[in-house]
């Protein structure tokens, strides 16, 4: 069996026409690159905007509403960017929503808030981030050094972190009283709320980290072929820990944003966010098996879902219908991607199969 597999996978290929012409047609080139992969998402988003504009007119198409869409996208967006890294490396993090909840609870504890009042509001931020990092560190160590499957390890964290948050908060809502914190979180820069700026900055930083740094290269290499990465001398285990810490850190940042938006910490914050994040990442075009990740795609994925919610809300449609639409979008997006993925490389690989397909 193996003999035949190895043989079949041994294509001796002539140069495919069109691929080598990297300078021939810049537009074509752009469409074939990552931008092209995102093009479908841009079109989908544009369609949603058209639907919104047609059904709700000016109520939809105004600056305030655009801000609403982005504000709605911002928290889940930050989480999704963290998750993008983990998934690009071939992993998964189911715990981000719970960890978000835990960070809001611990950062809004009376003791923390009192200490923050005496020193600075930044203390609350630091506490939230630290909680996220520690949760991610535990995930990473259990996965990389304990050799526990990521799905199971982060599922345990999902359940455990939520439980811990309930225990600490006694299931009560902890109001944020620190005025400085609230003032900063409600601030606007150039007429745009801070929450949106945080999302934008995290997205840009994430894009840079994934595409322009050795950290990103390691991430993609591990997701593309873990064994080859290991045998090339990359410290795979250590990097896996960093990745889950990064996802935890993103959950911590999202926790801070959540505290600012809702002015309260509670164990129910971030419920099911992990699923929204994974949906956005996958719809965005990041491969669930790893090896290819796109921050741009994730951002578009998040925006598609938040725009969808906005359009539905504007039209007073049932949230159940909205959930149904979300499900459809996920399936259709992934089906389309698989078609593209199958068509792209396979066409080059096995010319003989084209007729059959």
């Amino acid at each position, binding site marked *: *069996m*193996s*003999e*035949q597999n*190895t*043989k*079949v*996978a*041994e*294509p*001796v*290929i002539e*140069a*495919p026409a069109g*691929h*080598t012409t*990297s300078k021939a047609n810049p537009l074509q080139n752009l469409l074939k690159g990552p931008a092209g992969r995102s093009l479908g998402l841009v079109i989908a988003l544009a369609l949603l905007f058209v639907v919104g504009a047609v059904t709700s007119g000016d109520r939809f198409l105004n600056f305030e509403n655009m801000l609403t869409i982005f504000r709605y996208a911002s928290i889940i967006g930050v989480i999704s960017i963290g998750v993008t890294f983990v998934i690009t490396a071939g992993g998964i993090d189911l715990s981000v929503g719970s960890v978000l909840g835990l960070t809001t609870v611990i950062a809004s504890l009376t003791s923390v808030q009192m200490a923050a009042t005496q020193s600075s509001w930044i203390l609350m931020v630091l506490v939230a981030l630290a909680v996220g990092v520690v949760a991610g560190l535990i995930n990473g160590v259990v996965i990389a050094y304990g050799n526990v499957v990521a799905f199971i390890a982060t599922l345990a964290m999902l359940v455990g972190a939520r439980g811990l948050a309930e225990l600490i908060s006694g299931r009560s809502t902890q109001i944020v009283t620190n005025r400085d914190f609230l003032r900063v979180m409600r601030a606007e820069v150039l007429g745009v709320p801070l929450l949106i700026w945080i999302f934008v900055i995290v997205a840009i930083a994430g894009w840079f980290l994934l595409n*322009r*740094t*050795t*950290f*990103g*290269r390691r991430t*993609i*290499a591990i997701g*593309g*072929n873990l*064994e*080859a*990465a*290991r*045998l*090339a*001398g*990359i*410290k795979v285990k250590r990097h896996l820990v960093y990745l889950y810490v990064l996802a935890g850190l993103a959950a911590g940042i999202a926790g801070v944003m959540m505290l600012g938006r809702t002015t309260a910490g509670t164990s129910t914050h971030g419920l099911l966010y992990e699923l929204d994040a994974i949906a956005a990442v996958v719809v965005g075009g990041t491969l669930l098996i790893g*090896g*290819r990740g796109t921050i741009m795609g994730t951002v578009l994925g998040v925006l598609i879902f938040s725009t969808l919610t906005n359009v539905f809300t504007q039209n007073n449609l049932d949230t159940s219908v909205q959930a149904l639409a979300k499900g459809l979008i996920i399936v259709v997006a992934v089906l389309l991607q698989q078609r593209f993925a199958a068509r792209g*490389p396979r066409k*080059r*690989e*096995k010319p*003989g*199969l084209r007729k059959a397909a």
Partner: protein
Amino acid sequence: MFEEDQPRPLLEVRGLTKGFAGVQALKGVDLQVLPGEVHCVMGQNGAGKSTLIKTLSGVHQPDSGEIRWEGKPITLPRPTAALDLGIATMYQELDVVDGLSVAENIFLGHERATGGVLHVKKANAIARTLLKRLGHGGLSPSTEVGTLSAANKQIVSMARALSRDTRLIIMDEPSAILDSGEVSNLFRVVRELTAQGIAVVYISHRLEEIRQIGDRISVIKDGRSTANGLNVTDTPKSELIRLMTGRDVENVFPERKPVPVDAPVVLEVDNLELFGHFDKVSFTVRAGEILGFAGLVGSKRSEILETIYGARKASSGKVSVQGKVLRPGSVTSAVNAGIGLSPEERKSQGLILDEPIFKNVTLSTFERFARGGYLNESAERGAAREQITALELRPADPDRPARTLSGGNQQKILLARWLVHGTPVLLLDEPTRGVDVGARAEIYALIRKLAAAGTAIIVVSSEIEEVLGLADNVLVIDDGKVLTQTKASDIDEHGVLDLVMKGSAA
């Protein structure tokens, strides 16, 4: 087992061919199986054994050629067609369902039932008879198969074959999952079967085994029959090996350059040991020297290489590069000290297939080109382009995904990776596997050139001829033991095989 006036063959295969997208797996295979004989089919990995089995069991359809069953031409459009005729196949990865009982597994797919209601007692009774026929009456039909050993699962699989009134059983490397005690039991069962007139096609590449169990042998090489129905008793092992590996294409090995006497020792392996795999191994490799590991499949050559590299953690002993002792079980330590590995499985262990050539070339060095974590892709591309030119890698486009390259060019990517790194030690595991003959000569020349530039190289290959032609010095390895260390020019293929056979006979 059969007389000189040959009985009519049960199964006859003539000129079978089968191609898959771009690869011709079978190029003309002949086979005659007589009733009640154990017919061994031998061949190296990739020879086409598995494709042959699948064609005979109705999984694949042949492109051309003829299959005759008791003299009548037949087609096997699907697996059940083969089963209905009486051809059962025991695959290497046993196709039993762990959660079901022994009897349920035996009748899987042809349950004893009336209107969907199972006759449990009846099934158990028949199962018991079948197991008894196989000399395993002690195996209870109601036992859950998941609790059985691999050997007993095979028995269940064979009982299933018997339950269908089978006349021919194809066994795909049945001994691969068994220990030696279990293997002799398997042989006993196989003889029970043949005594009842059932023919067995026994696939294996273990020579000793075939000697014990087989009546006749057919050999396949590169999808073609090289021998047909040889008598086991009067075919020497060396002849079988020649039939399996014999190369009809002349290899062009580059000329050896004598390693200077004062060349420094670069790699020193001292009493390296990995329990369960290989015993204490010691040797040194000097700058400019090519050391070859010669031995058959299963001799643990690759394991030794991977342990030197730290991909496996040594039980004891040490490896040092230019006097620096490596941390056992740490690839990073080996890479930092200056060892590069081109692994056996190029695709699954060496390359990130969807990434461009240049990123594959710089996979172990990209941090060197980066500044403060910021990647410098144009510098990486430049370094890759240099190697592409030096190694004549085709296509010469650093942005082409590695997947689209031929085996030889993918191998060059791995060489390029370590050339960029500048490692003084290079470990090459099967550097020409899946590489066509023309490209081989090119790779040999490259390896020799690297040695001439002062790199210490170890080459592992299952092709003894390749090791002997390429290396300066050779370690002959069998079953995790170094049998001898000698100059490559002082030994030939027969010498190596003699040593290996003496080793395995002892």
